[in-house]
């Protein structure tokens, strides 16, 4: 009997309309856990580097995490994995909500899609019944609209729907997959779904999920629940409100946006407005949110309420979470009312709430500087808000200039030329980043920005305070109940970390300490992505309920796989290295691993070089960031080393170029 997992995947060939239920190998679970881990293994085995995002041979994998569908609180992530059209590298966005547990209850761990359907279709999964169905009536429909129609069509309000909007259908490089309350947004996985002709996956399941040692497992779940209660009643002192509690940043709950609006950049990640947050604005924005937000809502089996139901008179209701609350507002120099309104349309279209506003602000900056002209933007409205709606509509339809912008700022700038590249200034590995421009280099963040392969800072940071506490007593207080650290040395790093003087940034934490810290931060994210755990209860916040000490117990008693901290760390390192190997094989090298040039004003080139050199060594990678033969063998990834050898990856020492053309070049 398989525990926690179902032991079966669905293999769907959309070209031939073929559906197979295939048993997966428990030995792979032991090595790669599940979710992202086993997805990465499948991508390595079946998608060689010659396959680009829009090739029929690219796979699109929807996976539940290993523990999804068990009573583990907040374990509900769907990990979607494919090759990104924007980067040419592995994309592995996840979404919360309700989809992954439902897939488990239907009896499957993964849905693996290949090929392309000539006509739009949707996939309907109801336990043993799996059908590819016509979706021509859904063409051009919004993501929420689609979900609503499909729930009625299958006559089941409990069916969970993951759908793309018009952006995905038209292969916009930052198209998302939407699922009501949640979305898998980054790196254009919605475009791959659209390219495959797949409008939606509807899933409904009524089967049991078993756990190996019930009493023990339930005890662990109850401990987590108790700890959440305790943490909610005792927010962490001395940090800003959104970092004091658990969950995703509580953007739907809090009204005080002084920190975001005055520290993050407005427009095309350009302007800092230091005195923006006045009492009048606070009042106005509070009123806006209070009126629009009718309820705070959670993902499956989680008490945290990180999302909100947004109902604005005259517009369809939609569900929102996190920072998309402010991305449109700030990119357009507007107010919260505008932000909430345009986000409604953007959600139906299905675009990434980080990239989309920046692409539009980038286009307007080009226009203001004469690089894009009235000829490129016929009938452009005169007000900023109007312009944003105008651009959004053009982009998702790939109309006129929208067709260029739909490839994101990196590729658009290349195509536009005339110096436009200078304006695509906030990218890492070709993906738009959070609009942050800061003064002095932070060595921990430097490493995370450079090497994070989800290419999004929130998906690697966490656990360790972002800033040193000013007073020693505060630090002592903080480390007292810091049970989450893998080792007591991390407490010492924090205790000695001062805002000024010898033990301050950028030279403290020291280079080896930074490596140690970043490795821990990243490891926890990778574990979450394999187990299906929400980062908001684990890798992201300070002092989370899940950590390296209780996770092995969850896996042992839940999935029945013998696990301890060392073995879990090794497994996480194994598939983390495999993710890197996939990207290395696709051309990623050291020169791709750097933050935006202007991210910090004060840079320290020598220190930065030392940081990266040391971190690469620490990870078992050579000076190009390529995993060495030795470190691969240590992780039982010999097959990767052999493939590297065959392709001359290790011998050539990394002069194979990064992909030079966007995936859309091969347009039919």
């Amino acid at each position, binding site marked *: 009997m398989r525990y926690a997992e179902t032991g079966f995947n669905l293999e769907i060939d959309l070209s031939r309309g073929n559906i197979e239920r295939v048993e997966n190998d428990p030995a792979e679970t032991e090595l790669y856990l599940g979710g992202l881990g086993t997805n990465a293994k499948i991508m390595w085995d079946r998608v060689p580097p010659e396959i680009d995002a829009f090739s029929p041979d690219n796979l699109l994998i929807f996976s539940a995490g290993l523990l999804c569908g068990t009573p583990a609180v907040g374990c509900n992530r769907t990990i979607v994995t494919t090759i990104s059209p924007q980067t040419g590298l592995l994309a592995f966005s996840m979404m919360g909500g309700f989809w992954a547990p439902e897939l488990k209850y239907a009896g499957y761990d993964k849905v693996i899609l290949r090929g392309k359907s000539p006509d739009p279709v949707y996939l309907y999964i109801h336990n043993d019944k799996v059908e590819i169905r016509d979706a021509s009536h859904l063409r051009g429909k919004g993501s929420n609209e689609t979900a609503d129609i499909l729930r009625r069509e299958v006559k089941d309000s409990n069916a969970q729907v993951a759908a793309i909007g018009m952006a995905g259908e038209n292969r916009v490089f930052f198209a998302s997959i939407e699922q009501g309350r949640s979305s898998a947004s980054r790196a254009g996985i919605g475009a791959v779904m659209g390219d495959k002709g797949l409008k939606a996956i509807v899933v409904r399941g*009524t089967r049991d*999920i078993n756990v190996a040692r019930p009493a023990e497992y339930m005890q662990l779940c109850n401990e987590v629940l108790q700890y959440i209660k305790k943490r909610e009643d005792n927010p962490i002192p001395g940090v800003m409100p959104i970092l004091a509690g658990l969950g995703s940043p509580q953007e739907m709950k809090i009204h005080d946006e002084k920190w975001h609006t005055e520290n993050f950049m407005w427009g095309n990640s350009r302007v800092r407005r230091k005195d923006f947050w006045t009492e009048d604005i606070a009042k106005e924005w509070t009123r806006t949110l209070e009126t629009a937000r009718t309820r705070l809502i959670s993902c499956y089996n989680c008490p945290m309420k990180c999302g909100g139901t947004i109902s604005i008179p005259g517009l*369809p209701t939609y569900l929102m979470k996190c920072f998309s609350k402010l991305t449109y507002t700030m990119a357009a120099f507007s107010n919260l009312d505008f932000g909430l309104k345009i986000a409604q349309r953007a959600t139906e279209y299905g675009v990434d709430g980080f990239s989309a506003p920046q692409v539009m602000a980038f286009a307007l900056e080009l226009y203001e500087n004469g690089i894009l002209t009235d000829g490129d933007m016929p009938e452009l409205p005169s007000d900023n808000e109007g312009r944003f709606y105008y651009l959004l509509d053009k982009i998702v339809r790939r109309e006129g200039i929208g067709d260029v912008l739909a490839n994101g700022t990196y590729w658009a700038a290349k195509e536009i030329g005339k110096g436009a590249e200078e304006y695509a200034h906030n990218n890492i590995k070709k993906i738009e980043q959070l609009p942050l421009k800061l003064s002095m280099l932070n060595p921990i963040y430097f490493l995370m920005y450079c090497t994070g392969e989800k290419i999004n800072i929130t998906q690697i940071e966490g656990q360790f305070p972002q800033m040193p506490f000013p007073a020693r007593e505060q630090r002592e207080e903080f480390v007292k109940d810091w049970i989450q650290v893998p080792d007591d040395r991390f407490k010492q790093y924090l205790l000695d970390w001062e805002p000024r003087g010898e033990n301050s940034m950028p030279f403290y934490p020291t280079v080896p300490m930074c490596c140690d810290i970043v490795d821990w931060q990243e490891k926890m994210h990778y574990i979450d992505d394999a187990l299906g755990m929400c980062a908001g209860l684990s890798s992201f916040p300070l002092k989370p309920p899940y950590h390296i000490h209780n996770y092995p117990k969850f896996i042992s008693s839940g999935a029945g796989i013998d696990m301890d901290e060392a073995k879990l760390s090794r497994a996480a390192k194994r598939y983390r290295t495999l993710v890197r190997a996939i990207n290395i094989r696709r051309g990623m090298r050291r020169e791709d691993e750097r933050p935006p040039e202007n991210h910090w004003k004060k840079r320290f080139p020598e220190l930065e070089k030392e940081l990266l050199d040391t971190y690469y060594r620490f990870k078992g990678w050579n000076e190009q960031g390529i995993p060495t033969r030795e470190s691969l063998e240590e992780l039982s990834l010999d097959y990767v080393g052999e493939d590297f050898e065959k392709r001359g990856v290790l011998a050539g020492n990394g002069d194979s170029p990064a992909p030079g053309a966007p995936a859309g070049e091969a347009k039919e």
Partner: protein
Amino acid sequence: MGEKKKKIIKTIRVDVDKCNGCRACEVICSAFHAEPKYSSNNPARSRVRVIRHPLRDIYVPVYAGEYTPAECMGRDRYTIDGKEYEECAFCRAACPSRDVFKEPDSGLPLKCDMCESDPDLESPMCVQWCLNDALVYETREEELEEDPAARQQEVEVGLEALANKYGLQKVMDAVARMSKKDG
């Protein structure tokens, strides 16, 4: 007729405004009632069900009540606060016209038993797992007439559901086989 007795009535007060739609109540109810306890979970077996229509902002936890052998004649619609609720939305019955509150494989009716167990729980599991206080456990004392027929009735309801699903003959065969085994 039974004699008059003081009895503790256990109730759960539902505050739909506080519900965040997480379905933790469904998860834990089904896990608690699994055989062996907590060995599996499956919201389709839960004795509380959250009626959810996120885009209409409807979240209503409903508890499984009695089995009813026939479906209702008229089906009403309700509008509350401008939101229209589907037919049967609040109904607690396991009834022939729908799958709600029936075991997914056997079709046997499910009924909330307030997590009856020995020793008594401090509060029912769904209440314990609802950290948002949408479900609040309350007890009150009432004078009640004991009705020894009630237990028997419950057994009959279960048998009737099985008979409806598999046919009376099959059920009788199964009972006969089981009694042989026991003997």
